[in-house]
């Protein structure tokens, strides 16, 4: 069974006919070719590699059907940088060596961006807790936590300007 959906993805409206059972993550990756969104588990919602923003909020795109995104707005990692300028979280991940293989990175960053929107001045414990839905097998998290804290500080400084 196919259904036509209209979704705003990274600021552009796309209209597609998709099978009803197609997962949002497959829609993003296979239909739209936005392969920055990754998949690390089998539709369990545990690893967080598939995290994207649905109307600005972090969601695991393997836990949703594409048809559920009909009429909504999605941002993926590819759409995070604005006008060629990296998001402060993206920059901080590089500066603090918060990635090794980079497979968790897109999901980690998308989750962190949403988290900092609601918690602009987090404690270390709050950052760690916010990231429990994103597994990173390489880094041991310490540098990820440092990067998120640094990005928060940079964003606060920018907001204060």
């Amino acid at each position, binding site marked *: 069974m196919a259904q036509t959906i209209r979704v705003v993805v990274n600021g552009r409206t796309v209209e597609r006919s998709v099978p009803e059972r197609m997962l949002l993550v497959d829609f993003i990756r296979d239909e739209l070719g936005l392969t920055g969104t990754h998949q690390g*588990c089998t539709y369990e919602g545990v690893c967080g590699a598939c995290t994207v923003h649905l109307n600005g909020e972090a969601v695991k795109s393997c836990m949703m059907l594409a048809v559920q995104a009909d009429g909504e707005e999605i941002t993926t990692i590819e759409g995070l940088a604005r006008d060629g300028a990296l998001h402060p979280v993206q920059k901080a991940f590089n500066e603090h060596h918060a990635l090794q293989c980079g497979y968790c990175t897109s999901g980690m960053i998308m989750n962190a961006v949403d988290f900092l929107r609601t918690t602009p001045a987090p404690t270390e414990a709050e950052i760690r807790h916010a990231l429990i839905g994103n597994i990173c097998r390489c880094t041991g998290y310490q540098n990820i936590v440092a990067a998120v804290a640094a990005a928060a500080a940079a964003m606060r400084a920018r907001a204060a300007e």
Partner: protein
Amino acid sequence: MTTMHKPLIGTSYRRREDARLTTGFGQFIADIPVANALHAKFVRSDRAHARIRRIDVARARALPGVAAVLTGEDIREVIPSLPNRSTQPLLPAHYPRHWPLAVGKVRFHGEPVAVVVAEDKYVAADAAELVEIDYEDLPVVTDPEAALKPDAPILHEGMENNIIFEMTLTGGFTPEEQAANAREVDAIFAAAPHTLSRRFRVHRCGVTPLETRGVVADWTRSGLRVWMSTQRPHIDRLVFSDLFAIPQNMVHVSAPQDQGGAFGVKAPVYREPIMIVHLTRLLGRPVRWIESREEHLMAVSQERDQIHDLEIAADDEGRILALRDRILADNGDSCEGVFWGFVMPFYGAAMVPNGYAIPKCDIHVRAVATNKSALSPARAFGTLPGRFAVDRMIDILARKLGKDPAEVRRLNILRELPHVSPTGVHYDYSDYLKVWDKLIETVDLAGFRREQAAARAEGRHIGIGFGTSVHASGVASVALVPMEGQPGYGSATVKIDSRGTVTVLEGDAPQGQGHETAMSQVVADMLGVDPEAVIVRVGDSVATPFASGTFGARGGSYTASAVALAAKALRSKLARIALHDARRNEEPDSVTFAGGKLIAGDGNPLTTFADIAERVIMRPLDLPEGMDASLEHTAFFEADFPMMSYDAVAVKVEADPETGRFRILDVTVAADVGNIINPQIVEGQTHGGIVQGLSNAMFEEFVYDANGIQLSSTLEAYKIANAADVPPMHVVHANTPCRHTPLGTRGMGEGTPGPVPGALVNAICDALAPFAVEIDSLPIRPDRLWQALRAASAG
């Protein structure tokens, strides 16, 4: 010299890989676009040991969109079985014959039995559900000791028992020499003032990467094209060539530019890629397989799983006089090209003496087939259980002698290096004591002991525990040839083009180690060029020189050395030409390469890097006598001995004797990794290794029920540490440059997880010393600790 230039080697140059990976433009295996590809889905055994009576694929085949459904019977005459000559090490062992799909019977829950190929992955999944398999159950054996019993079911035809591999690693090569050595060890035990005997057990766990495996293969008239998640593309090419009788020069294997971690898991030759290659050959279309997490956790990434019956003899001060270890590894079905499960416990057995000065050892290892998935390599490669056993034993000895475990450990640390261990492993020159002392200073042991006493007076229980690890970074051909039948050298090509831009070609296939950054630093330093303009290409069997792969921390030892040698050769060639053109007679070594220029010994610029490159390649006239225009150099770096890196780790915990709950306060690692190319990358690797060790010790566990059914095939059940689970980590170094690598580097990272579980458990036992609790097995969790506390208080 007038131009100062700061070397990049030794600086935390920001990773070049990150620009694409933080913006979603990396390219992993599942991201590689291949037009017209079919999708494969494996049907896996839902039982642990059973004869296949009948497989009915008719309904699956009939589903619209299905291109093929194959079973073992369809391929047994068509694809040669493993082992073949490119997947069988030279060690004496049983290498069980197997095909990519089960033939006749299944031996573990999760073994591939059939494969479905369809137009899209949803249809493939539907069709896989329609394959009907009729099994006749066989008795199951899931415990290595049970597998040794005379009445145990035997997994593999033609074998009299389940022993896949067995070896005495000490005393010499003949049974007589080994028996004589064992008698000497017995005599030391008989005369020693203290002897201890314990059974240590480390459960089945591993380092599953976040990205699963995947293969895309396309067989065309011009040959076989394969993209796959792999640590060893050149070895895969060799294997495909041998198995499918196609010349190697018609096989092109590429590891993707980006791989989502591997940690050893992507090194073996597994069933699935072979099957995918067969399918593209059969169907004449590209075929794609991306492994699901469930498949991954059932079929690969399971390691550790060893029992050590360990005994030591010691003097009154705590000096170990002799060690006896009987190791039993649960090898699973043992069907796994190149490693066959047992290569890890074999290496682990060879490394049991670790960095301790143990004069005499008697070490014997057995690897036994059971109805589980074959052990597959995981970072720390077979050594984690032995580290746990020996480091725990040193603490138990210290308690017996009433001494601080740190003091007893220091007494036993090797002082004389280079050293050849009782198992014949060569340790190169270093200073382990310097590393140890750095650790003790960093954790302020004396201060901690005061704090501990004060806390105890308040009823709080904090403790500190230690572990150490000597680990080879890369393996020299002298050892790797007998172990895996494969060479150990490092190789790289450096190419300079006519506009002076530099390309590095590396036949390894990194998965997050930051080779693009580190190798750029090396080349930029040697050639004085902008590291941002260096391109590093990896993992392509056509473009790059033959290499044995990214595994065992070979990057910093072997590959970086080959890159340095290749860059050095080009550098001296360019220097000679520049001096020749300037009609100067100095030695090429007098020329400095910096800031894109070549500068003579007197400080005068000779030429720019871009100009000389163009001059040599495009205007090859009047070159020095005997010189050609090539600015491409391939170097192979071989070593006589491994480059050992050394870690000493300290874990601090607080434990609650009432509940068995414990909290890790922090973890400190002091290490010798030789000269460091990029400190930030080295520190990051260390963090990751520590957390893998902790996660193995506390959370991860592959669980099989009595019928061999796997209960841990989701990340929900196979829990991996998350950000809130891990403590702060500190990394310090006391480096001794390696004497036999051109840059003084050693590779690092492989061994890091190994000593962590032992240090953690030592810390818990130290915290709870007043309760005399002893933990000899993993995993360690509050419920187990609580049980141990109850047992200790009961007497």
